[in-house]
């Protein structure tokens, strides 16, 4: 096969291809090693990490809807220390980028975590989750207020030299404004979207289908909204955009790239077809061939807008 240049640059990271697996849908990576060679991915983002362990939300935590799933995992994770001790060593032998997704309950915690991760070898970048809809205090407010997001990012920026990606919430009136704010705050890239706050009701029990009542909607159902948001953000920011939301295959990924995403993340699709990431990489190559180009860069933001 021909040689394709799929490399993209996000902050200081050169990814061998634009395909990243998203936080919370790829476990700690090892769960996927039986299905394909993780080294083929552009980057891996493990489950989001907090300063202290979090036990997560009560079950049921997941519910399927038309073309999507609502989850209320509640950011269950072993916390910084356990992660470094028990999970990080696994990535040592991998030849792909490791991006750490994390979140805090306060600005202080965000800064503290950024500082700590900064000194850990083997980490390429940080993705801060200012947008998780599943925790009731903290987190969520940063993700919906441009001022707070700006200040938070500015502070985190000072605490790390690693590539800093800010993951945006779609639950806002003006996502472009949010993106602009975090860009000004010093983010190297934005990633979007996180999940949409959503719920479902069991009409027989008259109870919510999720233990936490409200969860986050992901999957193909949200793709059209996510795509619009990436496009809007692309109109105003100069930093790279990592697009996601319902990407199930290469065609979906290419849509995101055409509207301006430099890289993309695979989320829910990992749960259904663990090989999605690898299949997307192959599909992108095929598309490049069909388009008689060998550089992915040429496609980024290449949407043709009718006159």
């Amino acid at each position, binding site marked *: 096969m021909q040689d394709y240049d799929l490399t993209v640059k996000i902050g200081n990271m050169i990814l061998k291809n634009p395909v990243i697996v998203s936080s*919370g*849908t*790829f*476990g700690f990576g090892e*769960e*996927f090693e*039986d*299905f394909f060679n993780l080294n083929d991915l552009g980057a891996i983002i493990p*489950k989001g990490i907090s300063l202290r*362990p979090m*036990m*997560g939300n*009560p*079950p*049921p*935590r*997941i*519910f*399927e809807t*038309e*073309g*999507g*799933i609502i*989850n209320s*995992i509640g950011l*269950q994770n*072993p916390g910084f220390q356990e992660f470094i001790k028990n999970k990080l060593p696994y990535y040592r032998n991998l030849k792909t980028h490791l991006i750490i997704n994390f979140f805090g309950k306060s600005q202080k915690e965000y800064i503290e975590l950024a500082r700590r991760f900064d000194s850990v070898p083997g980490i390429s970048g940080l993705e801060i989750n200012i947008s998780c809809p599943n925790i009731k205090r903290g987190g969520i407010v940063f993700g919906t207020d441009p001022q707070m997001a700006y200040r938070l990012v500015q502070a985190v920026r000072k605490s790390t030299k690693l590539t800093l990606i800010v993951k945006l919430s779609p639950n806002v009136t003006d996502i472009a404004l949010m993106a602009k704010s975090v860009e000004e705050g010093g983010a190297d890239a934005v990633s979007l979207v996180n999940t949409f706050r959503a719920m479902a009701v069991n009409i027989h029990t008259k109870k919510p289908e999720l233990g936490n009542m409200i969860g986050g909607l992901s*999957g*193909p159902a949200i793709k059209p909204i996510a795509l619009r948001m990436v496009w809007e953000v692309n109109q105003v920011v100069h930093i790279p955009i990592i697009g996601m939301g319902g990407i*199930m295959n290469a065609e979906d990924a290419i849509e995101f790239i055409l509207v301006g995403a430099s890289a993309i993340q695979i989320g*829910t699709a*990992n*749960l*259904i*077809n*663990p*090989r999605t990431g690898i299949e997307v990489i192959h599909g992108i190559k095929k598309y490049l061939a069909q388009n008689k180009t060998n550089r992915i860069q040429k496609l980024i933001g290449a949407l043709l807008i009718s006159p």
Partner: protein
Amino acid sequence: MPLQTDGIVVSNGRIKSLYFILGIYCPPIANQIKPGQFVMLKVSDDRSPLLRRPFSVYKSYPVSHPEKRKKGYLFILYKKVGKGTRKMTTLKKGQKVNLIGPLGNGFTLPPLPSSDNSILIGGGVGIVSLCSLGKALESRKLFVFIGGKTQDDILCVEDFKKFNSNIFIATEDGSLGVKGTVVNLFLSQRKKFKKNEKYYIYACGPSAMLKALAGTVKFQNFMCQASLETRMGCGFGACWGCVVKTNHPKTPYQRVCKDGPVFRLEDIVWE
């Protein structure tokens, strides 16, 4: 080691009321799968339903199996309850289906020399995962308690008859066996079990059944392994969607798919 692979539907048909058996030719999984483990099946090519569905394996035959017409086959006994299982009933012979498996930890068999001391308790479709366990324990004497809402929900009786089993049946409406729950039936037979011997209980069924069982088997001489069912996102440990609360000191919410589906019943915290 779980793997993702295609299988070929070899048969699919109703056995009674809402229950069906799906046969799939899938040597890589049929070779490996152990009692209590399960597979994640993509019941349809399209996105409706979106997620895979978890199923125990009712029977499986490795390629080393002597009968040529069984080599590499696995069978799923399923109940039509919703969107996914409804679509499953339309799968046709010759169709491809995608599977991930074997998944989960499976049952721990009783320590070797023991015999006559395995108790299987299954409610509804839960009996299915005990059926392959029954086969693994074939040589020993089994006490098998099968429960269901009505006689239509009593499954696998013929299978257990082939093993060396003592079968007890309970239905909630009394249409077959004793009227009442399978747990009450088990309790009523408790005098059969000697106080000074260890018994290995294997249970699978709805939470209500397992919870009731947990309330009753707090005796030193019963070791109870329970196979749980929760809604699953992935089935292979990636999403933390399937958790159950346990008495684990650090991580109370354990994954049913990866840390289970078989747990020590006493470790489960019922809420």
